């Protein structure tokens, strides 16, 4: 092999080397792990969205109920509102327990159920 041929040979080797990435294969199970991660995220997103919608509906229904009761302005209803305002911590604690239970039931338990099923 003369020097020109050897040079061409080396050039080919360098070109080939730059077109290869030999020891760096994608880890086995990469796609499965990724799809699992994606499905987990999608499930969380779906459950949280549903929870937010249901919570929004409940709050809207309560707000409408409060307006219906408040506007006629009867004494008994006004006294009920003043009682609720005075004892706001009972209302806040009840709301917190309700939404925590609701979240646990609608999001967390459903997520665990779907995870076990899959």
């Amino acid at each position: 092999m003369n020097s020109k041929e050897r040079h061409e040979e080396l050039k080919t080797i360098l070109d080939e080397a730059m077109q290869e990435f030999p020891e760096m294969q994608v880890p086995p199970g990469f796609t499965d792990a990724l799809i699992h991660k994606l499905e987990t995220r999608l499930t969380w997103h779906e459950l949280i969205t549903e929870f937010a919608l249901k919570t929004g509906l409940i709050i809207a229904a309560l707000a409408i109920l409060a307006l219906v009761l408040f506007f006629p302005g009867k004494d008994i209803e006004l006294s009920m509102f003043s009682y609720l305002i005075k004892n706001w911590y009972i209302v806040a604690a009840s709301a917190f327990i309700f939404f925590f239970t609701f979240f646990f039931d609608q999001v967390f338990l459903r997520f665990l159920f779907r995870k076990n099923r899959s």
Partner: protein
Amino acid sequence: MDDFTLAARVREGNTHAFRFLVEKYKNLVWHMVLRMVSQREDAEDLCQDVFLRVFRDIGKFRGDSKLSTWIGSIAYHKCIDHLRRNKRDLVVPVENYTPAMLSKVMIPETIGDLDRAAIKKLVHQIMEAMPLQYRTVVTLYHLEGFSYREIEEITGMPEGTIKSYLNRGRQIIHEKMLGLVPDIRMILFETY
């Protein structure tokens, strides 16, 4: 299935289509991320983040460019963000590039050891030790076969800069080969 149809299926939330997309482009993303980040332990998480971003943003893909270019662009910017967060040097000016940066390259003991596989291994080691901008451009051009225009779309670098990095990258490989294995000068007497 062509890329536009594939993107449309993924946009509908079809996870089977997304699996197909991942299988098709995982090597591209893996090579890019590994070459840019150089740390295997970070690379897998970054690759997953790239594909999760692809799934989230697939609605923004209008088909103006190739899907591979669009995914490559997401991978490139994810890596840059990662390197920035970890405060690693993003761009090393040419004048600051010293042979000390090649200290981790394993030099064959004798010229007799320098067979075809050994030369390739040496080239890979030199490439891994090159500054980020060179190894990114060389990887995109040589390994993934992107054109200058596509590399411009991926990295946002002007075409002139890409050509300059590519030539300088090749030059570095040649210079380092000559510097590390002086006997090779006998057969490598001109640059290409």
